[in-house]
């Protein structure tokens, strides 16, 4: 089958690409656009390492076809910092050692940002359930959950 031409916006810039109809959006991001910050841990929607935003909704890039991105707005971890200014979640993850190997981190950051955009005052339980689709095998989640709650608290204060 011929490669399909797809037009999107990625991290604020217009972006078009060619892809095979069966290619996932994750494959396109990583292999065609070389945006390798989005990770593949399972390709079955079970680990959240591939979390991205599509038209403002949190999705697993491994569960979407590249062609489905036609006309859509995509945000990945590479677009999270503004210039050299890290997003408060990025800063807090570093300050509170909320990552060990860092492989799950892009997915957690994207998912946590999505949470805080819809709920600025989540309880610990809400944070834990929102992030239950993101696996981390290193941290036991403690420092991740704390970092997210601390960012929420600080953002509310300012």
């Amino acid at each position, binding site marked *: 089958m011929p490669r399909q031409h797809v037009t999107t916006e990625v991290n604020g810039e217009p972006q078009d690409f060619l892809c095979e109809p069966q290619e996932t959006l994750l494959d396109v991001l990583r292999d065609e656009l070389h945006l390798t910050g989005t990770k593949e841990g399972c390709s079955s929607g079970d680990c959240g390492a591939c979390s991205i935003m599509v038209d403002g909704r949190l999705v697993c890039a491994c569960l979407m076809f590249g062609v489905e991105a036609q006309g859509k707005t995509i945000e990945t971890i590479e677009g999270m910092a503004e210039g050299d200014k890290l997003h408060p979640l990025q800063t807090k993850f570093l300050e509170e050692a909320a990552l060990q190997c860092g492989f*799950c981190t892009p997915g957690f950051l994207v998912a946590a940002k999505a949470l805080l955009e819809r709920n600025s005052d989540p309880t610990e339980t809400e944070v834990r359930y929102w992030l239950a689709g993101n696996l981390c095998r290193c941290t036991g989640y403690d420092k991740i959950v704390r970092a997210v709650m601390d960012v929420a608290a600080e953002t509310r204060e300012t």
Partner: protein
Amino acid sequence: MKNETQEFKWVGKRPIRPDGVDKVTGRAKFGADMHLPGMLIGRVLRSPHAHARIRSIDTTKAASLPGVKAVVTGSDFPPPPPPVWQAAGEVPVNFRDLARNVMARDKALYDGHAVAAVAATSAAIAEEAIDLIEVDYEVLPHVIDVKAAMKPDAPLLHDDLFTDGVSPKPDKPSNIAKRMEFAVGDIEAGFSKADVVIEREFTTKPVHQGYIEPHACVVDSSEDGRLFIHCSSQGQFMVRQFCARVLDVEISKVTVVPAEIGGGFGGKTTVYLEPTAGLLSRITGRPVKMVMSRTEVFRASGPTSGGATKIKIGATKDGTITAAQATLAYQAGAFPGSPIGPGCMCAFAPYNIQNVNVVGHDVVVNRPKVAAYRAPGAPISEFGVECVIDEIAEKLSIDPIALREKNAARQGTKAYYGPTFGPIGFVETLEAAKQHPHYSAPLGENQGRGVASGFWFNIGGDSSASVHINEDGTATVIEGNPDIGGSRASLAQMAAEVLGIDYDKIRITVADTSSVGYNFLTGGSRVTFASGKAVIEAANGAISELCARAAKLWEIDADAVEWVDGEARPAGDNAGDFEPMPLSTIAGASGKTGGPISGHASLNVKGAGPGFGTHICDVEVDQETGRVSVIRYTAVQDVGRAIHPGYVEGQLQGGVAQGVGWALNEEYIYDKDGRLDNPGFLDYRVPVASDLPMIDTVLVEVPNPNHPYGVRGVGEVPIIPPMAAVANAISDALGVRLKDLPMSPPKVLASLSNGGSRTPS
């Protein structure tokens, strides 16, 4: 409890890790993030059978598919090297078996065993080609269960495997690769002195390390036979050696560039894809990238052993343990080499017991060859021991922490496996646990509390590092251990402390195999200890040179200069004669005083400090569904000294989470044909954020005298206590003692319907 006698500027602080920004922005390059021009994609064909003879493999159709550049099978590899055992990872390896695990030769030994591989211009073509390879299998009887594999009539995996460690040598081959025994005192006399003797049998399931990053590599072979390997592993020097042996090339021709590693926990202390990618690249003359799918990770890599253990402990009325006996059988997977050795050594090591007997068996079964997993072997044996200790405490109406304290190993205790302990902090962890508010907090209905302890010996080993002083007064540290959880930070902190300059002025690099001296892999909880020592020694070498240069500028003797707070000061007779000279001044003048200033160290580091931990766990059991929830958890551990407490706490918390998964959910499920039924994160359920509470940590610091800052390894101990802590908590809640992992809802429900009363003894 903290050692506050010394004040440090960087040690014990929580600076931002040097690789932090790369890891929160997506910039960090992990194993699968490398792209090379002209790169091909490799895929592996894996056996669908648990045990089968490979009669023939027909690759013609696959090879003629357009876009396919190479197809290889076992016969394309060099003949496997001789089966000589060596300490190469956390568990011993022999390269004959490693080569046969990388690619099956005459037999496929487990569901998932690699039998052929292809390289093609796209992943889709490679996958299509894999389906076109025709393998003629003769399916053989298989064996999955460790006890079944030990029976005399069990299907044999290897007809040349004779049990090692029994004399005379058996005249028939078997699946028992090895028998080992540790004994001190008189075990029968010990039991005869006891007022209470408890003997129980336990089983544990194989569990996967579960790193979120699947195995991945890109290998590029040059026309003159060099191999450039970019991959995610726990040791670039391990990958270099293993690939050189399997592909029969000289070590100097192999360069391994360490990618960032997305978790390993022992599971990346060996190779699976790299030799195959190397062979495919050699044949095609193009770089070849290979990445495992999650299904392949489950079917073909890791896990740790499942085990069957029998534990017998006797104690007098006052709680003194008089004898302890263990019989252990560990699954090795398809090739010999389970972590039975550490399992035997660690079982009773937290306790000072006069009469001990431990017998271990290493048993092959038709499952993937096990790999190291955090404190390999220890959680399996210590699980049973810590449960029996709890039962003895209950029987004697002694507080379980008090019983442990009464029998605890201390400085001077001679462990039954050999060494006499130096300063250790086991008793301190017990004290801290007892004092912790968690231990006396009230419990609600259907809730219970359990405690358990754990021991891991920790290791040192070979480490090299360099410290280069840059002309502007900053420093570059070169080391050779993949950073799996913040070790760049801890090593840079120690370098800053020694040099007396700001942490921000230090850049640390994990170098490839051609750019730094040999380093043993990241494992055994050795990096901050052993490689830390190498960094400290390299920094001290640079300081000697800095002092010599200052002396030259001042025109005094080099030994009349001392290094204080990042500057050279005249000492002795010359004290006060010159203004102190900061590092940046000496560095700027280095061109005039003798050239570049560096320090190097290549060490074999001994004197690892053993690690002990004590955990408190509260559970709540849903009597209707049998679901056990961990509702509060506290992990106490002697960490020697926490260089970066944030990452030390993280080790404890992560180990606990893995241990809770091992206790409650995780297991490999095989069907009757020996095929893995749950090779994915949906059905092999690792704990998610909503399964766990916050995990409190208490860092006890009893410094290791064999390290300048007192470091002991911390990464392994925390996975040991959770299984028993959870089991003991369930017993406290329900009055039933569960002995088979995982303690999943069906087992909990079954035990409830069987009475739910205190276990009869």
